[in-house]
């Protein structure tokens, strides 16, 4: 351990975010990271625990606590402290194929479970990870390292989200020839078009794509397998197929007035926005412009927040975010102790920006949409919302939501963005391969396995486990890769920590 007393001597310090009013002027990442030396001291705060909760990824009270990738956090935190950046990178990439993504977009389960957080501030593990990977690029450690021997086996991966990419990376390292099919024009899945540029700049995705290409992975974009290309063809041409198509079927809000113009799914809104940004810096106008519009976002999660930030950047007149749940407490509740995932109110960048611009938090809690109100042209004009109250059902003991009579309220809305989560995979691809689904509309496999009901077809990521975090997607990809390797070769030396 770098410094046993580090956690007592040094305070947590993290990157500085640009002033909200400044950063809304652009779509770039807006954090100024600590200088290397200071970052090293942050590494010293790691206590190198006997039981590192940060990397456990165990289910505690129904939620994952610690990193599902089992990142060797204590090991590389220590190496950060001692300034062994190259070794730190080696330990990091051992479990994580894409630290450049996770260090930007992960909600950092590691920090939530960090033992330092029990009585103080957790170690800034996420930013240590960021420093390691960016340093690795800067110093030239993170370069292509193509396999020396090829197995002659071919694998098709459908979908280029984090899970598909992770599987591709693993299998390619092993010497298999991997082709990744992506229906969009750019690879990355949600990394590319789900997460806005200010959270993850797209050249970061391209940077990794380039390395993977140099290592021998083939990317085919603009091909929608199951529609543009038949499943059978793929199965004929490749020894194995991995489906990694995500859970991209958005949950809709089916209330009256849903047909009003101006209602979008958040993913579509965000995708169009990023594509237009990348294609033409918004010159092509192929995005939903929120300038001077009243924007109402349904859903209080990360995607909703991304919509807030994006809308503000385009100059929305007002932004309102509707959340069914009550406002979470500012600190952990008694029944939500460490290391459980903290159910606390988090004010994310978008909300911060909203507060800076409009002077108040955009979120309305314990409310739901009752009706979309349109004008005579069919354009959206307002949203009627109603307050919800939580009641305990005497019979089942479960908490149910009840509308509070007379609490209806109309808020002006020109644009509504639905960010209410996802309902599993899109059917066409599963149908095309004829794989069975489970009751949660995910592709069915045995627990902990990746082989689908169809021979030679494997599944990974959200399509397998349902909507989840990037870290889970990567873990799935790694495990699926091992399963595929084993099925191809009869054994596998691919390690999943």
């Amino acid at each position, binding site marked *: 351990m770098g410094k046993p007393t580090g956690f007592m001597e040094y305070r947590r310090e993290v990157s500085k975010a640009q002033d909200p009013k400044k950063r809304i002027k652009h779509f770039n990442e807006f954090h100024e990271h600590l200088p290397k030396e200071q970052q090293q001291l942050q590494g010293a705060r790691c206590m190198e*625990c*006997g039981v*590192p909760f940060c990397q456990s990824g165990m289910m505690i009270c129904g939620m994952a606590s610690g990193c599902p990738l089992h990142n060797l956090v*204590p090991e590389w935190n220590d190496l950060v402290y001692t*300034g062994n950046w190259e070794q730190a990178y080696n330990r990091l990439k051992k479990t994580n194929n894409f630290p450049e993504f996770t260090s930007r977009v992960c909600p950092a389960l590691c920090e939530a479970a960090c033992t330092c957080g029990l009585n103080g501030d957790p170690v800034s593990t996420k930013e240590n990870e960021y420093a390691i990977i960016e340093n690795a690029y800067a110093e030239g450690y993170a370069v292509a390292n193509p396999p020396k*021997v090829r197995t002659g086996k071919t694998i098709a991966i459908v979908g280029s989200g984090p899970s598909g990419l992770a599987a591709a990376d693993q299998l390619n390292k092993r010497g298999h020839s991997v082709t990744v099919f992506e229906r969009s024009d750019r690879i990355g899945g949600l990394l590319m078009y789900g997460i806005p540029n200010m959270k993850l700049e797209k050249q970061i995705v391209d940077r990794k794509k380039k390395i993977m290409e140099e290592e021998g992975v083939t990317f085919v974009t603009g091909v929608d397998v199951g529609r543009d290309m038949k499943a059978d063809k793929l199965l004929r041409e490749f020894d194995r197929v991995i489906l990694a198509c995500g859970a991209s079927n958005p949950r809709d809000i089916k209330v009256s007035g849903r047909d009003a113009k101006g209602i979008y799914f958040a993913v579509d809104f965000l995708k169009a926005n990023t594509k237009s940004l990348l294609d033409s810096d918004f010159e092509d106008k192929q995005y939903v412009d929120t300038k001077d519009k009243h924007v109402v976002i349904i859903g209080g999660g990360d995607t909703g927040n991304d919509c807030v930030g994006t809308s503000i950047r385009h100059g929305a007149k007002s932004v309102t975010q509707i959340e069914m749940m009550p406002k979470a407490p500012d600190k952990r509740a008694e029944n939500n*102790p460490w*290391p459980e995932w903290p159910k606390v109110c988090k004010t994310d960048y978008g909300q911060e920006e909203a507060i800076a611009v409009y002077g108040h938090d955009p979120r309305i809690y314990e409310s739901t949409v009752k009706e979309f109100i349109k004008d005579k042209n069919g354009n959206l004009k307002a949203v009627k919302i109603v307050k919800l109250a939580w009641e305990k059902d005497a019979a089942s003991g479960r908490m149910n939501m009840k509308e509070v009579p007379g609490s209806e309220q109309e808020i002006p809305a020109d644009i509504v963005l639905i960010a209410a989560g996802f309902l599993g995979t899109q059917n066409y691809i599963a149908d095309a391969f004829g794989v069975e689904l489970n009751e949660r509309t995910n592709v069915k496999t045995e627990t902990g396995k990746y082989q689908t009901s169809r021979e030679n077809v494997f599944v990974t990521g959200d399509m397998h486990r349902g909507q989840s975090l990037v870290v889970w997607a990567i873990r799935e990809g790694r495990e699926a890769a091992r399963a595929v390797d084993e099925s191809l070769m009869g054994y596998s030396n691919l390690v999943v920590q």
Partner: protein
Amino acid sequence: MFDVKKEVPEAPLYREEFEHDNCGIGACVNIRGEKSRETVENALKIVENLEHRAGKDAEGKTGDGVGILTQIPHKFFARVTKPLGIELGKEREYGVGMFFFPQEELRRNQAKKMFEIIVEKEGLEFLGWREVPTFPNVLGHKAVECMPHIMQGFVKKPTNVKKGLDFDRKLYIARRLFEQSTEDTYVVSFSSRTIVYKGMFLVGQLRTFFADLQSEDFVSAIAMVHSRFSTNTNPSWERAHPNRLMVHNGEINTIRGNADKMLAREENMESEYLKGQMHKVLPAISKTGSDSAMLDNTLEFLVMSGMDLPLAVMIAIPEPWANNKAMSQTKRDFYQYYATMMEPWDGPASILFSDGDIMGAVLDRNGLRPSRYMITEDDTLILSSEVGVLDIDPTKIKVKERLRPGKMLLVDTVQGKVISDEELKEKYASAQPYGEWLDNNLVFLKDLIIPNQRVPEYTYEERQRMQKAFGYTYDELKASILPMAKNGGEAIAAMGVDTPLPVLSKSYHPLFHYFKQLFAQVTNPPIDAIREEIVTSTTVYIGTEGNILQETPKNCNVLRVNNPILTNTDLLKIKNMKAEGFKVEVVPITYYKNTSLERAIDRLFVEVDRAYRDGVNILILSDRGVDENHVPIPSLLAVSALNQYLVRTKKRTRVALILESGEPREVHHFATLLGYGACAINPYLAQESIRELIDNHMLDKDYYAAVNDYNNAVLHGIVKIASKMGISTIQSYQGSQIFEAIGIDKEVISKYFSNTVCRVGGITLKDIERQVDELHSMAFDPLGLGNDLTLDSPGHHKMRSGGDEHLYNPATIHMLQESTRRGDYQMFKQYTAMVNDENSIRNLRGLMDFNYPKKGVPLEEVEPVESIVTRFKTGAMSYGSISKEAHETMAIAMNRLHGKSNSGEGGEDLERLTVGSDGLDRCSAIKQVASGRFGVTSRYLVSAKEIQIKMAQGAKPGEGGHLPGGKVYPWIAKTRHSTPGVSLISPPPHHDIYSIEDLAQLIYDLKNANKEARISVKLVSEAGVGTVAAGVAKAGAQVILVSGYDGGTGAAPRNSIHNAGLPWELGLAETHQTLIMNGLRNKVRIETDGKLMSGRDVAIAAILGAEEFGFATAPLVTMGCVMMRVCNLDTCPVGVATQNPELRKNFKGKPEYVENFMKFIAEELREYMAALGVRTVDELVGRTDLLKVKESLSERQREIDLTQILTNPYEGSKVKCTFDPKQVYDFELEKTLDERVLVKQLQKAIDAGQKRSIEVDVSNTDRSLGTILGSEITKKLGDNVEEDTYRVLCKGAGGQSFGAFIPKGLTLELVGDSNDYFGKGLSGGKLIVYPPAGSTFEASENIIIGNVALYGATSGKAFINGVAGERFCVRNSGASAVVEGVGDHGCEYMTGGRVVVLGPTGKNFAAGMSGGIAYVLDEGNDLYKRLNKEMVSSGEITSKYDVLELKAMIQEHVALTNSEKGKRILDNFGEYLPKFKKIIPHDYERVLKTIVQMEEKGLSAEQAQIEAFYANAKK
């Protein structure tokens, strides 16, 4: 042979080889060789007065063994044989054989006939038989049941054979032939000079059983006696001492290696005296004998081969010569010469030997057994374990002495004189030009030339592949190799083991990890290899061993290596050495992938045979060259298999094995390799890995310095492992096989690791092969595909998700904490469900299942929770290792539940001993007494409900502790009676327990110190723990705790945590079984602990024999512990294991949480009991019929064989198998002088608080004198009675532990002398001892008190007019003492107090001393040679304050003892003062100065301490 008839069957887990014995010894010799009845009488009296050193069975009627060796009383035999028609002839013209024949007549007659035939064939004349008259009715029934038929046979000396040795040699050959021809007869002795009478007696029975011994004409000039205290009540007639040449008190720890090497040596030995006869005699050692018997066999063999008896003893038990700079060169050369041929037989030993002409005595190199002797005016030498065993008029005593470590005392009755150690040894040392021989033949590694060759080096990638192929982990690189290379020492870790045994682990473990280090507990002491380094040696000799029986220069033609861990350069030198007499060859220990490992090993044997035929005498086994198709044989397997093959084929001494391997990297790995036969090891890959660390900037150090430091760290680690077993030299450790295997198939063990205990089976050779292959595939992919070559993190110690499963993981820790905080039993059940997860078996109990009866009992009928929790205890964790908050929380919780918390070894704040003003009882019910004796005062002991003697602890059995100064905060220092900021050392052994009878004495002391308290002894599970427990039960303990290896909350070396000790399942079952076998089970309660986490665990523990249960980690977790494993760093972030006031603020534990845990466990246990149909815990104990092997096990898991644990031969037996209060050991305290006289006479005065003096006569059997009286004073009046309020004047010989733990206000004045442990734990009282008036010897030159005086004294005064034995004032923390000379290791580990020594000191003075001051009169200005300067400085006395203090102490000494020497010094004080040296520890001096500075600044004394602590901590 003559074992007790098996009325109870043998316990499955018991092994005969687990037996140990320790004893009392004595001798009486007429120096002029005049035979008399008095000599025999005196010897018998000695042994009768050592009763407390003898063992007896559960009933107290059968002894462990007593015997006597005398010269042959010619007149007696002539008289008694006459009626039988035997013509003996003259003295020494016949030999007498003493026989234990079978009782059955037919077999006896066959044996007798056989003997007669052999004697005749050997050219001797058999004269006749004599029935030895015996009185079996005096014996206990067990002794009678196995009593042999005892006869004597007489053999005539042929006229052409010389009297004495030559004749005895003929008899020896005949005896050896007879012994090999008959199974059921034991020859007690067969000699023309000596005879032995012995048997299974109580001390008084020897005389009454053998009528011969009572005859007036049974006379002798030499008589040696022995009483045995076996740590097992399964003693036998033949295991009693004396053996044919010697008696032995102690234990040979290295016996396996010694015996093996002796066997191997036979091929090499030639003697002109046994020319053509050798085959009749060999094997010299009878492998069924005890350690003492084997040593006796060896000595006898050497003597018969022509070696002088004293010489044979000298080379078998050499004094520590290697580090002794004061020794003469000739003597060093002599020892060096013989060291190349014979390794020391090492272990605590006091040995008396005699061939009928001479009588000698020798002590082991450490002086671990007491032996005192005196010589009287009429030339009688009386020697015994204790003084006072005979009444000798003090005016007739010429010399009072003790045997000294490594020194020999010899009486030659033929020449009629005592030969001094110096004279004797110089004689043998100058017998040959050993120095010249060595100079010509002995080769030193450092002198070999480095050849012009490169040492092979790996590229980065090659290195990575090698690391993978040998299964390296990141953790090993980072947390083991790195710290060793960086700091030159082993890494420290904490919080025990909670991962599966290797055999149950899903991740790879090298074969080393299947072997667990054995360690000494009770039967012999571990050695302090750090503070007592002077007795250790790491030298090994490589090459062909010489012929020990002939003194020739060629014998020492071997290579001397000082550190058996070789660098690449060292190995290169050896590979290329050109010296005469050496031929080196490298033999690969790799084999082709996909061939069988078994064949590979067989091929290795063939290879080695070939090399041997070619004259190779140094074999280098090498696994360099592992590549795509070469896989390595696991190095330990290769070494052990080959070593055993060489022993079997009698080549071992001709060939030395050096290992060149990439596999070993941790200390334990090397320890097993040396322990199984490697002479030296070159860990090339570990050293390469150091290069990698440097290349990777993880280590900033010169490569060669780093490798050296690494090698030294390994070496020190091995020395420490050897010391744990009481072995002090690597040469003796080599091949000693002191390991138990767990999880290896029996066939593998018997084939390649025979002699290793392995009781549960496990992996087969095929499994090992598979493991090797899997590793190899990870390094060299079978298809050459890309592999992750970075090191894995399997989390063997600190957890890594995806690696080894830990019982304490985020989920279980969280659930345990939440459920006990909320008091939610259902949630707790979720926690236990995780712990007991059927799908992941992590320990032996996981392999078991309950055998539920068809019908249980209703839950309401089961013993209630309130009753069950009284059986629960929290673990022994010292205040110091954990915070005040945590410590008190547990105490409060356990007191509320009427369970017991344990103080641990750090003492306890006085305020806690009484109920607080808030009504909370913070007093720990169990008070621990550990080797450091911190804060063990009379008050501390009086406040206990149970006193626990910690013999070993799970995390690091056999090791001591070291609390670094930075953790000795002022409040900790206060309860430990030490100085803030000064580090504290607890020694590895209890210095008052070097053997079982010593433990019995400590138990007795503590029982005296608190009559109401139960005495408990804490042991750690290992092979043989049941046997030890049996001894402990006989010694009077009422509770025996068998701790699992996996427990242990404290800090310990990484290697100890994982590789020493066994799971409690094994130790507990063995203990339960062995105690029943010996009828001792109902005398004690058995307790167990070691990661007990659920009701299921407790139920299984009860079924395997436990009645009480300890929990340590779990309660800590309920109080907030999150298994940081940083207890050693004082950075515990939850305020549990830290003293840092800031971190302690984070403590959030409450007694309720601990209570909830205990209640929940009890509740869950009740549920199991109900289902099992059992109503009380007592009913559950021992019910192994309720357990079975789990049905759904994997193939690997099924390989583990639990039969021996689950088989209960005692089910339904009449023997009650739980504790029975009626059977409790009777200490007979009502018979003590204290109860009979002292308390009675002083009671009124105590009640009234008045002054009073009395007088009594004492003898050596009055042990722990004054202790009960002291406890009464403490109970009544507390710890601050005015000095000298109660005075007791004692006359005679003080028994052991004279004045132990006596409090302030009590003064014991002794006119006479005293035995060991004088003033043990002195708690404020005053002790005065001086010789009686009329003594003619010079008091200041003669010994007056025994070894280990004032051990653990905390305050008080002692004035000793005479010399004290070894280890005077060891661990003194506050008493002041004046003495006129001390033996070796004086003031060891002292942390406080004042000691004035008005005379010479022995070696190693002030070792580990971290506090207090010693003033030593250094008249010869040579103290510096014997001072251990590691922690102290020595200088003249300059400060006025010091002068005053010294003078005042001497004045008081003179006033109280009338010391002549003291007077002389005071009369010429100015002259003497400059000759005094002041010995003061560096740290202590610094802290004292700072405190004074702080006080000068105006701070209060308390504030000054705190400020001084921080001021020094910052440095």
